[in-house]
């Protein structure tokens, strides 16, 4: 039971990654593929953030810390969540909206040329033009 409670999180992240990978491989619609990529991305991000969680720990903001008069109070590392994965994933989320914009722009470019977003129809048109 203890092993179950401490590891079920990982199983859910793995399930989300499988959903994302399946969508990227099997879906016919290009925007659906982009959504699958985003799901895969969030699964990895949530895995990283979960490594920063600590039992009984507070959010990574020091209470009553104003200026450096408070610098002398003793701060225990175990009382605050690990801020490092938070920082890395915060920037990853913002970059992911940039990459999402580029991916959707490419989808729009493809639609402009082939008038469809379905993978098999684009392939047919490519075969016909050969």
């Amino acid at each position, binding site marked *: 039971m203890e092993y179950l409670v401490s590891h*079920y999180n990982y199983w859910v992240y*793995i399930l989300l*990654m499988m959903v994302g*990978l399946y969508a990227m491989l099997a879906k016919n619609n290009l925007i*659906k593929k982009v959504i699958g990529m985003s799901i895969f991305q969030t699964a990895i991000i949530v895995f990283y953030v979960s490594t920063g969680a600590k039992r009984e720990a507070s959010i990574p903001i020091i209470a009553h810390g*104003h200026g450096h008069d408070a610098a002398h109070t003793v*701060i225990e590392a175990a009382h605050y969540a690990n801020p*490092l*994965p938070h920082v890395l994933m915060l*920037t990853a989320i913002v970059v992911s909206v940039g990459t999402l914009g580029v991916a959707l722009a490419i989808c729009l470019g493809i639609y402009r040329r082939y008038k469809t977003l379905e993978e098999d129809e684009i392939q047919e048109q490519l075969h016909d033009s050969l």
Partner: protein
Amino acid sequence: MIWQIDLSVLSLIVLCGFATIMVKDLLSAAIIFGAYSFLMCLLWTEMGAVDVAFTEASVGAGVSTILFIAAAYQTTRIVKPRKSGRIFAKIVALAASVAMGLVLLAAQTNFPGFADPESPASLHLSPYYITQTLADTAVPNMVTSVLADYRGFDTMFETAVIFTAGLAVIAILRRVKHIDRCELPDPYTISAGSQDNIIRFVSRQLVPFMQLFALYVVAHGHHSPGGGFQGGVILGASFILLAITYDIQLVQQRMNEKWNILLGNIGVLIYASIGFICLLLGANFLDYSMLSKILPATDPVMARSHGMLGIEIGVAIAVMAIVVTIYLNLASNGKLDKGL
């Protein structure tokens, strides 16, 4: 950490993930994906990652959803059923994802338990950040101090990546000359809500408060969740709201394309030039403590705090300009005349 809440949020997330993939309408998929992002945001708050949750609420649930809707508006919202004879592809995809899942399941048995304070990730580098942030930088929000000071290089290039993404969207979509524009059928009509006076009035009243809140988020990021990225996205979202409820022309009059690209440049340059000022004063690149020489009445510790504020402002300007640019180009298919 209450595992019952954790488990229920996680199961809702998986449900939303499946629904996003299964649904046959791109607009519904975008909305369900927004719900998925909000649930992620709850999960992160529950894990103590408030800054990440704030970012996800503004970026993932807000801007990503509207980008998907803009893309569906410019193309088509209907997902056609796959033609027959493609069952094989589905089986291969299923086999590949199950194989990946099994490999990861085998790997996770070696992982430390969830929320274990003794896990390797929490023992080596991060205790220094947690215990020294007040003494080194006088910033109580350690996410901000790690983001803008200890790992400032990292954040500078992340900002540059966002700027590059904006340039890439312009390069792919923007059609300046009239001949370059290819004729497309009229975009799929999603709603006529933008003609509604109530919606227009309410959102117009909302915009100044949103912008004020965004400035607060940027300026108060040292003491509370928030910072340049979140504030910049909220600032950009206020312009996107205007573009949705009125039209793109209204936003173009206030912030045209030239200004947008210029502001994106200025944001990245503010970041880099603060680094260079430190270099000129004889310290390392982005070592803000040397700024105490030119800032009046500051010691090296407070100078690091002020330096962080400076680069957060740069990040906010760049992110705002790029988010607006990406939205306007996607929503108008690169013509910047009319759209969603």
